[in-house]
């Protein structure tokens, strides 16, 4: 497109030159010629400018994320400094929630409009398996820690898939109303199942994930046995039987914002959600709610790069990701949101909240004080058993 238009401009220029030159020799007026030269120069300059602007305009990339406070933290910590350094415009698309089906549809249509996509680890593995996400050589493509530690060591176990570039750790955890739990605030995740000590409704995710683990844990199963047990029909039935004991006391949520709203309205005494949502409820909206970190289930969120990008776009996506996941950038993000950085080297740099001015370290799910009893989501397990357990769970729910 650009090439064609510049060729056209050159053609036009030749025509103007010849015409005007004839005219000049006919009139023998030098200053007219000069004016024409000036005119053509401006034409050329504007053409060149618009050509350049066109190229600069092409220097943009679409990054897909979740929106809200989370996108804001990325904007402040990654996008703004990256644009300042490179001049690349970043378009923020907020459809991460439907990233997997959309990437699949884009791939089938052969029209890829996304450059970098923010997804949870589970969907990242699925995209990797379907061949929709690019495989990453973490040590080669990502930055080392400041002390020279390789990226694969710095991220450690959080690299759960060949395509996944870890970014933050968040957790499914429980918050409770201070004024509804009496004088003995809960200290254990099993308070969820203890309707005698803590009467009232609780809100739980409308899905198997997180609930099945907690049910077995509170039914006395050792943590190491939970996933092997959930592979068997008997284990699944045991978890559902445990959930049956509180079924009538549960409000099932499907959006992360539900539990904070239900807690704020006093509709539930306790409820599970993402830890960042509870942080916002407690610290930003000053609601009488506390965190129950016990039994929290870690989940990861990170980047993937879709397969099938043109070489230039892929190089730019990799360049961006290398920048956005270096030690300092990951630490910077925690100034804006209470999700923990996935690099060991970033954890040391976690600072105060940029607007509230409070220390962020105690609000990180990975803080030692909060992580005495935790799970890391078993992605391999859920990849195999999600369909099966989910349909069983939904059938149980509908009874």
């Amino acid at each position, binding site marked *: 497109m650009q090439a064609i238009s510049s060729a056209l401009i050159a053609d036009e220029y030749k025509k103007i030159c010849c015409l005007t030159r004839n005219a000049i020799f006919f009139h023998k007026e030098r200053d007219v010629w000069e004016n024409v030269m000036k005119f053509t120069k401006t034409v050329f300059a504007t053409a060149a400018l618009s050509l350049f602007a066109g190229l600069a305009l092409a220097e943009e990339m679409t990054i897909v994320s979740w929106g809200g406070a989370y996108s804001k933290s990325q904007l402040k910590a990654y996008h703004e400094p990256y644009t300042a350094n490179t001049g690349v415009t970043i378009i923020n698309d907020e459809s991460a*929630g439907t990233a997997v*089906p959309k990437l699949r549809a884009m791939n089938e249509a052969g029209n890829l409009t996304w450059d970098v996509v923010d997804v949870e680890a589970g969907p990242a593995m699925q995209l*990797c*398996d379907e*061949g929709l996400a690019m495989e990453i050589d973490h040590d080669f493509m990502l930055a080392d820690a400041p002390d020279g530690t390789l990226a694969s060591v710095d991220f450690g176990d959080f690299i759960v898939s060949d395509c996944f570039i870890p970014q933050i750790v968040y957790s499914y955890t429980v918050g409770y109303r201070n004024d509804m739990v009496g004088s003995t605030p809960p200290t254990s995740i099993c308070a969820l199942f203890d309707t005698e000590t803590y009467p009232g*409704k609780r809100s739980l995710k409308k899905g198997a994930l997180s609930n099945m683990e907690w049910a077995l844990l509170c039914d006395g199963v050792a943590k190491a046995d939970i996933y092997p047990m959930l592979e068997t029909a008997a284990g699944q039935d045991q978890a559902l039987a445990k959930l049956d004991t509180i079924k009538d006391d549960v409000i099932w949520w499907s959006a992360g914002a539900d539990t904070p709203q239900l807690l704020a309205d006093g509709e539930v005494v306790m409820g599970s959600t993402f830890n960042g949502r509870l942080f916002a409820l407690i610290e930003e909206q000053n609601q009488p709610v506390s965190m129950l970190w016990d039994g929290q289930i870690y989940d990861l969120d990170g980047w993937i790069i879709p397969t099938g990008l043109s070489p230039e776009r892929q190089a730019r996506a990799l360049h961006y990701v290398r920048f956005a996941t270096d030690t300092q950038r990951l630490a910077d993000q925690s100034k804006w949101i209470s999700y923990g950085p996935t690099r060991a080297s970033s954890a040391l740099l976690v600072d105060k909240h940029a607007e509230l001015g409070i220390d962020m370290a105690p609000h990180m799910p990975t803080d030692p004080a909060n992580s005495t009893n935790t799970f890391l989501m078993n992605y391999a397990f859920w990849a195999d058993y999600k369909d099966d357990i989910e349909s069983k769970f939904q059938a149980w*729910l509908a009874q």
Partner: protein
Amino acid sequence: MSYTDDNGPMMTMDGKPLKRSLAIALRRQKVRALLLISPLLIFVLFTFLFPIASMLFRSVENDIVSEILPKTVVALHSWDAESGELPDEIVYSAFAGDLQRAAKAKDHTRVGLRLNYEKSGMASLFKKTARQAKKWDLEADTSFKAKLIETHKGWADIAVWQTLKTHSSRYTSGYFLNSIDMRKTVSGPEFQPEDRQILVTLFKRTLIISLVITMSCILLSYPVAWLLANLPMRQANLLMILVLLPFWTSLLVRTSAWKVMLQQQGVINDLLVALGMIEETGRLALINNQLGTVIAMTHILLPFMILPMYSVMQSIPPTYLRAAKSLGATNWTAFWRIYFPQSVPGIGAGSILVFILSIGYYITPEIVGGNKGVFISNRIAYHIFQSMNWGLAAALGTILLVAVLILYWAYDKIVGIDNVKLGG
């Protein structure tokens, strides 16, 4: 201008038969009309009909297994799945070849994901085995049966091979069977275990709740539409704005507002407690159940009922009612025998709109429906967005579409589609 030949047909001025000339003119007109609507036609074809057809096709399409594991599928033909014995070496070595090729092309995970919908664990079985498969030497190695079983004990499980064989055909009825809580097995279709049966329940529930919603919309809309049609212009306009205002508000905002109204610590319960009508401990459960879905969706779909009713009622001449009364009818008889029959086309149009919209709804039931007030569309959304089982989603969608078409056909037979009016 034309003249008649005494024996021949009527001719135009230029000597052609009038009939043909008219036909040509008519055809030209038709072509012109077709050309005029062709942009819309093409647009609808490419953005609506074609995508829907291709989505529906997914409900029977199943070429992934036979494409990625072609030799295995052929080799499995000679294996009797019900024999209770593992397939022999030919199948295993064909499979080893297929898997190695698939692993190099990175296709193996796709077939693993596909089969995992049918049997849990297939995804990781394929992933783990393929990692080893890349190293095999197909020429030199002989016993792939032992090799595969050594790599993963899953290959010694007959059920794995049965799943592979059952779901290797290019077209499958499996997704449709799944949609009605059945499944395809080696010995033919059978019901799912009881603790996994959910979809038929959801289909029934969707139809019943949608009917309830349609009925309550009719009951609530009829008086409003009547008022709209009979009030003086000024008041009617004001009322119309009140009807349309929620129509222009975001669906999510309205649904969330119902949450605030209906929850146990919500406005309605607070009011009832303050008035002493219910006890503090006996707050009503108005939301997160079927009642919540009915209330919120009735409210959201009301304008779709009111507007067609209104436009029909507006065209009923008030003189008919006056004439009936002057002939001695009571108010009720005049309404029931004269006015109501004339307003039925509006009710019909509104009901079709509301019913069809409501069986496809999923956001509102998801937010206010709790565990018992969700629809089949919530499962479709789940299979599109979460489990990525698009085949099953397509089968569910096809069934829903066919159900609507059948209901439409029944409606046409009973009431007659000509009796439906969307406008005066």
